[in-house]
């Protein structure tokens, strides 16, 4: 059998693909959002809602907790949890980062003007691709990050009074 360049290329490409398939079989693909709790935040870059600057993981402060809140003006439950966020704003130990999800800038700003702006940083994920990193599949969702940038809790659905107390407790421990 004559060994030609073409043969080697095609065989190695196919072998490589099969190897990747094999590895993919053994990686856990089940989509579980609980899995990210306890992990450190991955690197991320998300642009601000009202300008083109980018907020990165390095911009997280080292002596405060952060609450990532993913919201949209079209999302009614987000209205419901808004008062909770406004109450959390008073907490000194906590910075709130709002990620506006698949929304129009105008509507988002109107929403904040009407109901108040609880966010220390307002970011925007226009096509919903950045928040995948945080395992977001529906909004609202909130993610609590500690001073070491580890995700310590995740809240799916609107925050309620119980969540509020949980967050206060976690933030003020020690």
């Amino acid at each position, binding site marked *: *059998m*004559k060994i030609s360049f073409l*043969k080697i290329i*095609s*065989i190695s490409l*196919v072998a490589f*693909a*099969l190897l*990747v*398939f*094999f*590895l*993919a*079989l*053994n*990686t856990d*693909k089940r*989509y579980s959002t609980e899995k990210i709790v306890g992990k450190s935040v991955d690197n991320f870059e998300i642009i601000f809602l009202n300008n083109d600057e980018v907020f990165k993981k390095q911009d997280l402060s080292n002596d405060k907790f952060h609450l990532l809140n993913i919201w949209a003006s*079209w999302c*009614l*439950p987000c209205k*419901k949890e808004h008062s909770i966020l406004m109450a959390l704003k008073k907490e000194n130990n906590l910075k709130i980062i709002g990620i506006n999800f698949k929304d129009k800038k105008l509507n988002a700003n109107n929403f904040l003007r009407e109901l108040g702006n609880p966010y220390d940083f307002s970011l925007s994920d226009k096509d919903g*691709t950045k928040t*995948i*990193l945080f395992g977001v599949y529906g909004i609202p969702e909130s993610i609590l990050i500690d001073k070491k940038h580890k995700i310590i809790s995740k809240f799916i659905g609107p925050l309620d009074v119980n969540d509020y107390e949980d967050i206060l407790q976690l933030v003020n421990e020690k």
Partner: protein
Amino acid sequence: MLSNLGNILLFGSIFITLSIIYFAYQNLKEKNILIGKNLVYLSFFQITFIIASFLLLIFAFVFSDFSLLAVYQNSHTAKPIFYKIAGVWGNHEGSLLLWVNIMVIFSFLFFLFNYKLKKSYSLYTLLIQNILILGFLVFLISNSNPFFKILPIPSEGLGLNPILQDPALAIHPPLLYLGFVGSSIYFSAAMAAILSNSNGKNFASSIKIWVLISWSFQSLGIIVGSIWAYYELGWGGFWFWDPVENASLIPWFCMTALAHSVLVLEKRNYLYNWVLILSIITFISSVTGTFLVRSGILNSVHTFANDPARGMYILIFLSLMIFFSFIIFFKRKINDNFYLEPISKETFILGNNWFMMFYLATVFIGTIYPIFTQVLYDTKISVGPPFYNSVIAPIIIPFLIMMAIGPKIRWIKQKYNDYKSLIFILILSCVINFLIFTFLKSYNLLSNLIIISSLFLIIHSLKDFIINSKTKSYYNLPSFLSHTGFGILMLFIILNHNYSREYDLNIKVGEAKKIDNIEIKFENLKIEKRDNYNVIIGNFNILDLKKNYQKNLNPEIRIYDNPQTLTFESAIKTNLKQDLYLTMSNIDGSDFYNVKFQIKPFMLWIWFAAFLTASGALLRTFLKK
């Protein structure tokens, strides 16, 4: 009882398959020029056993025999009989039995029809096809046995997922399987042609009909799947570039290429190696697609109960298949020498193949790229419609133009001098396009070009057909149907893409909202109890203030008990011009309902054109020269 009988039939089938492999091999070594009668009998037994096992499973589903795990997990006594039967292939185990059935039926028919061909070719085909059958039978029995028993016998089943209870989806799997499982037969035949040193022309004419049949069914399967997605999923689209849709499209590209190049091999005895490669990769891509879907490494709407062992088995099977087909193919040392005239049917067909391979590569890379990044870099990405649309759409234009001219070109060589009518048709297409966008709404340059080229294809084919029909020769009718159908399909997809409108709003009962010239009024809400579900029916009134029409739409939210699921049924009003499409969903803890209202033009035409395209090849299988 049923379980035992089923298992006996399956083990019987394995035994027969092994015997066929053994006797076919023995028979090959003998100098006798005739194929042994025992192989014919064995093939007959094999098909009887395997069909009996499938009928038995259908029987178990129809009479709700919950002693079988597969029935218990996927059926329910309260289900209509139609969906009980559809439940047979609505799950991994049953669908795999259907898979093996199709392989056996194709094997049997191919053997029957090509009994008189060169002995070694027929026997090798039978041998290799049966090795494949054996592989899937072992898979079936070892970890996907549809006749697996449970004790104690439950009194009621878990039911079939309600979104699968749809007539289009009931026939979607069998159609698709006839397509890509059917391609196994020309995989085997290609291997056999190499091993038996068969003549290219004979090989081509023996597989041609099977390529056409599988292509038609593959097309129909894809269309029916799209129809289901459109009516049932409630997203208002019919193609999402979902990995699993792509998995059915990749073999389709191979089949389309093969259906054309096999003609070159048959007529001119050229491109033998290429036809062999296409025959081989069609089935390989089908199995790869199956692997991607069944192993659960892709997330999509086609979720089967995932078991890594299953993925592993298919992957090993796939690797072996690729390995041996490569070895056998590379053993063939014959190089094709050919010379093609630039203007000849051969060249145009080769052109078609290049386009198909381009689409195939694009879709394949887009589909597996996320898996690669996940494994190699541990980053999740998703490749979506923007990628496919921007890579594929521009290349559609030359493809459509070639598709128009190709069928008219003669074999071997032609002096093309029909430039006058070419230019005339081109101008006519431009004029029609101009009329469309001045009277309706303008669109971007790319859409303009695609619409012009699809009009060009449609008009050119019509002209050719009219000229041809004067001679009363209808041999070209099938390719005319398929090519024109494809042109119409592209035309309406692009128009639909450009003229679709979508409104998203939250609305309370009794409220009315006005957007553009359309008023959407939420009249009232009804709650009803039906056979196996409760339903909330919304009554919406759509008023077009400009065109002054009024339509009532009644979307539903269904609450099923077994298994407990909510489904959202879209309300669709169809006419020749457009579909009005409305879905509603409740918003937890509020009186508001989220309503998505879409106007989708020409949906009926898209379905019609797609069926027209698929019908061509079916017609060809019946039409003799």
